[in-house]
């Protein structure tokens, strides 16, 4: 039996449960190692007047302090636009921005030295909000637009139209393992860096530039991360470069380590958005036109903000066909840490906006929102072209909308909720079902490539490495399954080793849900090449003309640890290990590099048209919430989730991704609220003040099912990527809250609700509705 399709436990499961798994901070101190941290800007925006490190260097245990002139190579870097400084030179642009790098013999000394650094800054006027940025024309990059049809005409001629604004909050990645790197200096300017990064290649190039050495002098290794969620896609590079710079300067191993609090204060988060929309629809609630302006808060530098805005715009339609649509977007520049990737990458914000609009149409027409959604869904044979011109193929949305309401007993529960809300004076219930259609592929075409290295050893065991980094999502497990099946050997004969830039060069970040799609396909390519070569050789060993059978490579089969000729499977066979041993003696090449480039994807940023995605992953979730009318407290009573996973490579791990992604999305739309002081300091910088879902927030009833879909022919083994799509289903919890509020809204009024729907937000909305002032929106940062 093959490994693909089996519920094989996570590659690191045994190590994780026994505490043996090694994360970077678990690596024993290297000889003569120093610790590295930084002292940061005291203000959100200003000109540096002076940097005084004289007291810091006197702290016992401090080895060295460095400022920007000490950077050996370039001090300026950035994943897309080079607008970030490793150590601030003249201007500081957010509170805590690294200014002084400190190396010390102990963490205690580091702490004391950080406090002793005096950075004097002439404060400049900061920008902290999207509104302020718009008013001051503070943007990053040019405006973006995707447009189809006659929006203005459709809006003016429509019988029903309305406009509104939606404010969407950010979200801290809250990977449990904070940013960390360990740099080991080598010979002649070479450097090896262990980094908790989703993008070893980018770390490598940034370290090289900071050190002023060629790329081939730097090796970046990532064994595993204690969570990434996008937060380690670009922002692991700074810490890695800081460790490398100290290691290079001092010729000593250097470990960068910051506290969870400092990590949260100084790294980027999910982008807050402000959506301004105008929409037109017909009597049945079918949307005829949508005009949406998206403003994201990019923070102080570009980072990935432009691509994130792009994905938000590409998901403005979510699962709905909108004939006339104009989506414009801008990234606002503010004096906050540069916002960055977070699972969903703008998609969730885009989806939230249209789901909010659907709820509003439903409330205005007095029709259950599920009907409005069904009427607007992308069709299978018509109404199936996205605003950017890609046709929605393998569209599972109608099937999902057919199956889930049935299994979730939607109609029965709707009647129950109607009845409950008519009678209860203390509580409100709400229920909502939202879909997701998430585009799989990097929208930047270049990144849709991967390579893999497969080595077979003479005992028949196999070692694989790819550019895919492991952060718990199971890419290594799936790659092992793929290699085992392709070579017809047991799963346990394969291991996947740490991602390292000396084995796999020019890798793409492990992101965009595509880790397995890309790296698994590259590993398969290597295996196919090896198998072809080995089949040629095996043909000569299995059949020598004796008994009338001549060697035939096309008859050679690799299965269950054996290699045999399928014309005589019982007597013309040998163990895979024996074949390998012989092949080695006969000088057959037993290693191979595989490569994969996603076919057919292309997107033109200028025209806003193209085919950016290889396929879409679909899903639906139905959430029911219970709200306390006096306190605004909310709990999620039941969730039913149905996900189109194609034909899963590892259904167990997929299910974990779905459940976990949903919970993370639920956190974003409910309890996770970033609070900033008026000076731009993050107040919610630890789990005591920033509330991610804990065990008691898990929905009381939580049904997760996979839809059987064998027809997704374009992807790896007909599987579908699932890293990000389920997060977007968490939106159903927020729309369920809106649905609950709609029960007490006066006729013709629509409940407004910002995101996240914290108890405070819910209570404010309840109060507005009860007082009949639903149109008054209380602004929030």
């Amino acid at each position: 039996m093959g490994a693909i399709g089996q519920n094989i436990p996570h590659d690191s499961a045994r190590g994780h449960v026994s505490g043996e798994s090694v994360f970077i901070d678990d690596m024993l101190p290297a000889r003569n190692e120093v610790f590295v941290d930084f002292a940061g800007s005291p203000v959100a925006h200003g000109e540096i007047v002076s940097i005084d490190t004289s007291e810091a260097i006197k702290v016992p245990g401090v080895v060295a302090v460095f400022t920007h002139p000490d950077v050996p190579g370039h001090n300026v870097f950035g994943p897309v636009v080079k607008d970030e400084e490793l150590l601030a030179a003249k201007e500081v642009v957010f509170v805590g921005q690294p200014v002084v790098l400190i190396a010390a013999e102990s963490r205690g000394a580091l702490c004391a030295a950080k406090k002793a650094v005096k950075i004097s800054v002439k404060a400049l006027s900061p920008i902290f909000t999207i509104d302020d940025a718009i008013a001051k024309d503070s943007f990053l990059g040019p405006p973006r637009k995707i447009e189809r049809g006659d929006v203005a005409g459709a809006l003016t001629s429509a019988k029903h139209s309305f406009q509104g604004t939606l404010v969407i909050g950010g979200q801290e990645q809250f990977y449990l393992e904070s940013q960390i790197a360990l740099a080991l200096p080598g010979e002649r300017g070479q450097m090896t860096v262990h980094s908790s990064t989703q993008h070893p290649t980018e770390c490598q190039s940034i370290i090289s530039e900071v050190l002023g050495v060629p790329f081939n002098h730097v090796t970046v290794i990532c064994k595993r991360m204690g969570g990434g969620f996008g937060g380690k896609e670009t922002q692991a590079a700074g810490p890695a470069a800081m460790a490398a710079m100290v290691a290079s300067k001092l010729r000593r191993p250097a470990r960068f380590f910051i506290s969870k609090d400092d990590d949260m204060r100084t790294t980027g988060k999910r982008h807050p958005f402000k959506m301004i929309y105008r929409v037109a629809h017909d009597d049945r609630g079918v949307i005829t036109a949508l005009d949406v302006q998206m403003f994201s808060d990019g923070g102080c530098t570009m980072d990935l903000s432009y691509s994130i805005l792009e994905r938000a715009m590409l998901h403005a339609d979510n699962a709905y066909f909108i004939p006339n649509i104009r989506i414009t977007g801008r990234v606002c520049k503010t004096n906050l840490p540069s916002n960055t990737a977070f699972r969903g990458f703008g998609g969730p914000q885009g989806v939230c906006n249209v789901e909010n609009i659907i709820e509003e149409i439903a409330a205005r027409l007095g029709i259950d929102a599920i009907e409005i959604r069904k009427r607007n869904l992308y069709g299978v044979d018509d109404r199936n072209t996205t605003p950017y011109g890609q046709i929605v193929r393998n569209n599972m949305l109608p099937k999902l909308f057919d199956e889930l309401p049935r299994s979730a007993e939607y109609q029965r529960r709707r009647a129950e909720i109607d009845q409950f809300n008519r009678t209860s004076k203390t509580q409100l219930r709400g229920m909502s079902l939202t879909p997701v259609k998430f585009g799989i592929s990097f929208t930047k075409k270049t990144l849709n490539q991967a390579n893999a290295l497969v080595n077979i050893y003479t005992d028949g065991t196999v070692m694989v490495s790819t550019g895919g980094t492991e952060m718990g999502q199971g890419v290594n497990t799936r790659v092992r399954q793929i290699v085992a099946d392709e070579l017809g050997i047991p799963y346990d004969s394969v291991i996947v080793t740490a991602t390292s830039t000396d084995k796999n060069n020019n890798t793409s970040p492990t992101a965009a849900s595509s880790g397995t799609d890309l790296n698994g396909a590259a590993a398969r390519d290597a295996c196919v090449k090896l198998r072809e070569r080995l089949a040629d050789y095996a043909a000569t060993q299995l059949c020598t003309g004796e008994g009338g059978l001549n060697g035939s490579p096309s008859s050679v089969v690799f299965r269950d640890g054996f290699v045999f000729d399928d014309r005589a499977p019982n007597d013309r066979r040998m163990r895979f290990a024996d074949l390998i041993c012989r092949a080695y003696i006969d000088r057959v090449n037993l290693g191979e590099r595989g490569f994969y480039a996603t076919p057919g994807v292309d997107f033109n940023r200028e025209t806003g048209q193209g085919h950016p995605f290889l396929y879409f992953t679909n899903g639906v979730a139905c959430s029911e919430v219970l709200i306390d009318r006096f306190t605004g407290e909310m709990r999620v009573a039941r969730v039913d989730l149905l996900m189109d996973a194609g034909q899963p490579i590892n259904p167990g791990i997929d299910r974990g991704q779905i459940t976990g992604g949903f919970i993370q999305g639920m956190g974003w739309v409910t309890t996770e609220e970033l609070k900033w002081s008026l000076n731009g300091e993050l107040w919610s910088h630890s789990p005591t003040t920033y509330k991610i879902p804990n065990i008691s927030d898990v929905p009381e009833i939580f049904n997760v099912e996979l839809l059987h879909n064998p027809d997704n022919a374009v992807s790896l083994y007909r599987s579908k990527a699932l890293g990000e799509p389920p997060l977007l289903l968490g939106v159903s919890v927020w729309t369920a809250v809106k649905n609950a509020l709609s029960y007490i809204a006066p006729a013709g009024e629509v409940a407004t609700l910002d995101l996240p729907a914290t108890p405070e937000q819910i209570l404010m909305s309840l109060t507005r509705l009860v007082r009949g002032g639903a149109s008054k929106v209380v602004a929030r940062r």
Partner: protein
Amino acid sequence: MSNRTDRGGLSRRGFLKGAGVAAATTALLDRSVEALAQENKESRSVVGPGAVAITLKVNGQHKDFQIEPSATLAEVLRVHADMTGTKIVCDRGSCSACTVWIDGKTVCSCMTLAMDARGREIKTIEGLAQGEHLHPVQEQFIEHDAMQCGFCTPGMIMSCANLLERNKQPTLDDVKQACSGNLCRCGTYPRVFEATLAAAKQMKGGNGNA
């Protein structure tokens, strides 16, 4: 986090020696003032700054350390004992990634002074398995995919395994209560429920080793 050890239960002598740096909670502070007032002169000795010698009993073995009196148990386990299974995340008792057992009760080792753990039985994730035989909770965590990135897993398992020490027939609510303080960003909670309840069943059936 109702299942956490009441630190008031620590020996007064043990507490006093660490009192200069312990002041972790108001309750502790009140107790220290009261205790100081009552304690006679000779036992009011001050330790630190500078390393002191201590012996801890970790997973049944006595180990000697030279540590700063302000060192937390989590730090000593990770840095001095090279037992890195115990993770530090928030460093303030809010995430429970650092959960170990002291005298059979779960504590956040980041909130416990190593000095205060002297003379007590400390159990860490490394000591939960018996040789190659995993604890049933560990086995079931693997079986039920109850981990993703693995960073919260040691703490989560120490909380769940401790529950099964106290309660052989836990309900779902008992499991939720037992790991109510353990944060998992990957969202593996539903799997944790399944795994822990399955482990309870396994132990009841006599297949367990604990």
